[in-house]
């Protein structure tokens, strides 16, 4: 399909260490379409992070094929914000441009405009430890977006936050990703989080991970994550995913 921006075909990943080998991923098949928001849920330790590392090309699969559409670039967002404490928020946000050597005045402006647009304008000269957890995670997202990636890979980006902040930041991040029209692949072990943001949810088995269920969610495109939680389908989806996750 030409709209597929990322696809895994029979992908297997085995880690080798002195202690032995661990099959983290086995015969994994899935795809992500352009503009889609896909959530992957799976039991802890099943190989979720491995899947993102494979997608980003940080790991080579032991078998199978991973296809990435032409000119697709990835932006990675981790569980913790991983802002560098010795850099100001501005310098943190511009980090990907420094690394990729695309530190032009135009790119700089684009990245900083994005920061201002999403409410970080007043904090650009602050250091990360002066920001709240939610603000820091937002800064981390803007940093991810700074290099204008085609697709975002989100590895449980909210799980380090307390519940209240988490709901808000999730809403926040969802809105930014949507309005910037990015494709996103979100890893989470939180079922309700997956339902509240995704167009499609994939359920993984225990390790070695493979897809055991796929669900297209039919929420109205304009319902925000917090609103989705109020919808009547929500609990139905939750129950189904919960059961599938616990077989």
């Amino acid at each position, binding site marked *: 399909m030409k709209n597929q921006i990322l696809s895994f075909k029979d992908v297997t990943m085995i880690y080798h260490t002195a202690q032995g080998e661990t099959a983290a991923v086995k015969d994994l098949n899935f795809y992500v379409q352009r503009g889609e928001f896909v959530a992957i849920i799976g039991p802890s330790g099943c190989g979720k992070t491995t899947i993102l590392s494979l997608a980003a090309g*940080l790991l080579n699969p032991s078998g199978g094929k991973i296809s990435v559409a032409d000119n697709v670039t990835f932006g990675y967002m981790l569980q913790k914000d*991983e802002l560098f404490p010795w850099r100001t928020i501005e310098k943190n946000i511009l980090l990907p441009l420094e690394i990729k050597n695309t530190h032009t005045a135009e790119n700089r402006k684009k990245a900083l405009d994005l920061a201002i647009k999403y409410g970080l304008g007043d904090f650009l000269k602050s250091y990360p430890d002066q920001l709240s957890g939610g603000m820091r995670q937002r800064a981390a997202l803007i940093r991810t977006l700074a290099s204008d990636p085609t697709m975002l890979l989100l590895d449980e980006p909210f799980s380090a936050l307390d519940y209240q902040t988490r709901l808000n930041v999730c809403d926040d991040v969802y809105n930014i990703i949507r309005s910037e029209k990015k494709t996103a692949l979100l890893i989470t072990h939180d079922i309700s989080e997956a339902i509240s943001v995704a167009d499609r949810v994939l359920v993984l088995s225990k390790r070695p991970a493979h897809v055991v269920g796929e669900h297209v969610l039919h929420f109205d495109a304009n319902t925000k994550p917090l609103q989705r939680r109020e919808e009547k389908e929500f609990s139905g989806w939750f129950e189904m995913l919960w059961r599938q996750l616990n077989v």
Partner: protein
Amino acid sequence: MKKTKAEFSREHLLYLKKQKRVSLVVQITRILLLVLLLGVWELLADLQIVNPFITSSPSRIVLTIGSLYVEGTLFYHVGVTLGETLAGFAIAVVAGYLIALLLWWSETLRRILEPYIVVLNSLPKIALGPLIIIWCGTGSKAIVAITVLIGIIIAILNMLSGFIATDKNKILLLQSMGAGKIQILQKLVIPSSLPTFISMLKINVGMAWIGSIMGEYIVSKAGLGYLIVYGGQVFKLDLVMAATVILCTLAGIMYFLVVLLEKLVVKNGRN
């Protein structure tokens, strides 16, 4: 975002005042303690309760330093020791840092060299003194070599553990941005290990003085360590004490400079 004084509550102002008073008391007591110790020492010596020939006394120390100054040898000896210490310190720190970088870079090299470093670390470096004298002669070069030897292993081990402790997730993040090893080093490993670097400098200030003074004990014709040994041999305890006092002062100043550097580069614990 610091509040100005006017914005604080009355209670907080009282609290600040109390803190200030406490630290003032600490400082005054510190100075009084020194004065008291010196006073008692002087008094005991003056009244011949203890033998000033063996214990010296503050006034005799001052006189000795004065006469060294008049003879014109004070700054000569201080200069020799200071030069050796600083040279040894600088070489140990720079070379240690670079070697640690190399060991961070190549895990294989690290594994190959590990047992050697462990053995060198536990070896009392001073045991190599005679060898060094044979290799480097009996001049300042030998003393610098001993100083380097004492400091470098500690510099390597400290920095290496600092480099290795770099947050794995931050490395992953940089890799996901396409960073290579040099960029990871430059953007992450070096800046995040700055606190380790400062604490390594602090340790090595002490090591450098140990190195240079020990070195001068074994082989020297000048320097504070030489004065101490010489003073001991001819039973001039005033000279021994005077050199020790100068040594304390210099070591204190050097440590203070490192602390100043720390204040400059590590702001609010964020490097």
